[in-house]
């Protein structure tokens, strides 16, 4: 079995888990869900780290690409989780302490 096929299995199964997990989220939480999920998609930073951190004679270009990718992904990750937290902090039940 090639790596691609193996990865495809993982991909499809993860899609199903995603559908199961998220289809039950109440409409009240859709915005935080979206911004939180958005932050998770910043996981691509892991790839950016590998591209930027790899060193070699001919790797100048890829290091610069990786550097920009890290900036982009960090904005996504840090901003996404922080703003989601800021929103969720505001959600209070009746009678909760302010």
């Amino acid at each position, binding site marked *: 079995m090639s*790596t*691609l096929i193996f*990865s495809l299995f*993982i*991909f*499809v199964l*993860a*899609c*199903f*888990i*995603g*559908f199961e*997990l998220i289809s039950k989220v*109440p*409409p*009240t*939480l*859709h*915005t*935080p*869900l*979206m*911004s*939180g*999920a*958005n*932050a*998770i*998609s*910043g*996981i*691509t930073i*892991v*790839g*950016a*780290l590998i*591209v*930027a951190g*790899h060193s*070699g004679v001919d790797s100048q270009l890829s*290091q610069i*690409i*990786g550097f*920009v*990718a890290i*900036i*982009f992904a*960090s*904005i*996504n990750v840090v*901003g*996404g*989780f922080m*703003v989601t937290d*800021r*929103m*969720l902090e*505001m*959600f209070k039940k*009746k009678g909760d302490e302010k």
Partner: protein
Amino acid sequence: MSQFIPESLLPYLPDTIQIIYLIATFFFIRGLKLLNSPATARKGNQLAALGMFIGIVVTLFDQQIISFEWIIAGILIGGLIGAVLAKKVAMTAMPELVAVFNGFGGGASALVAWGEFSRLVDPTTMTPDSLVTTGLGIFIGSLTFTGSFIAFGKLKGFISGNAITFPGLNIINIGSMIAVLVLIAFFTFDPTNQTIFWVILGLSLLIGITSVIPIGGADMPVVISLLNSYSGLAASMAGFVIGNNLLIIAGALVGAAGLILTQIMCKAMNRSLANVIFGAFGGDSGGSAGGDAGDKTVRETSAEDLAIQVAYASKVVIAPGYGLAVAQAQHVLKEVAMKLEERGVQVKYGIHPVAGRMPGHMNVLLAEADVPYDQLLDMDQINPEFKSTDVVLIIGANDVVNPVAKTEPGSPIYGMPILNVDEAKRTVVFKRSLSPGYAGIDNPLFYDEKNQMFFGDAKKSLQALNEALNDV
């Protein structure tokens, strides 16, 4: 940082990293699960953030990573920008911010695919598998990047919210997408051909622009959800390229989340996804203002009159729309609601799925004004309650309460599920004028004999109502 690991343990390092990735995956899934309830959602988000942190730290031990200057600089710069944006943004501007973050996420994934490709000195050593995923990663990531920034521009008003289109644009878009896919196939056979690579990149960036430009302002919630899904897919593709399961799984979770939200939004507007993408519907100027408005009469109400009506009601439902947030009237609305509750009036909020400018946006805006989330009812929950409601206050909402969605098959919004406010004993519309809403459609509710209009700026009107309530 693998140099800090003792020589004897190095052979175990790759597997250890993978196991820790598995733990990070667990945190992501558990975090999303906790996002299912407002009571646990915050913890869920923090858990996901922890998963991300673990994933990043353990990656730094990857033996391929030997220089850290770029990494540290990149994380500091990006993290700072992200933190400032997250702290400063007004809750009304949340759709814009999510669009921007989406764009950066998609852009980063495209760059990862490109960087991975360019760091291999001889691309012919890459397998066809990884070349295909590299091409797809660049394609999806790039179109997410430009598409998100166009969506941002539309939401912000830099670019007209009107559907900008011309005949044949859809054909050009579909043609370009097919062209990119064909080029990716060529790229797989001949990865050394620089021209093919650049054309794929350029076309993908272009498709992002030309496919979002023709979509009208009213459809932006769908577009943002869809772009959110794409940014997840792009991360997955980047995972295929570098052979990293954590990226594949996390990306797939986000892709699924975005797709579900897209579906929910489409259903809430009774549109198919294809219709949103190719339909070019809705603008921000309302071109088709109803010409037959002149010969109908509306009943006006005043703050004093309305105060008496609501103070002696037993049940009041508030139907807020984005206009409420534009007028920054959530806080005074909350005060009005509190006064009514002190008098023993039952107060609930009925939230239409497209009440804000992204899924769930209105809930966040009301949460910001300290409205408890258990008072916020979604459309399916509130609709059976209107029959027993004395007064519905419709504030800054229009299309989502427009009865033509049920009665006029010719109307562009026909079939869209709405809040059935016309079933209540009385409705009061807070509005500046009789102008049609975002979708540019006249609203017969305004002329209904059970309806009263409260003209004026939503905030000023609510302030007047709030004061009038003191004297009742």
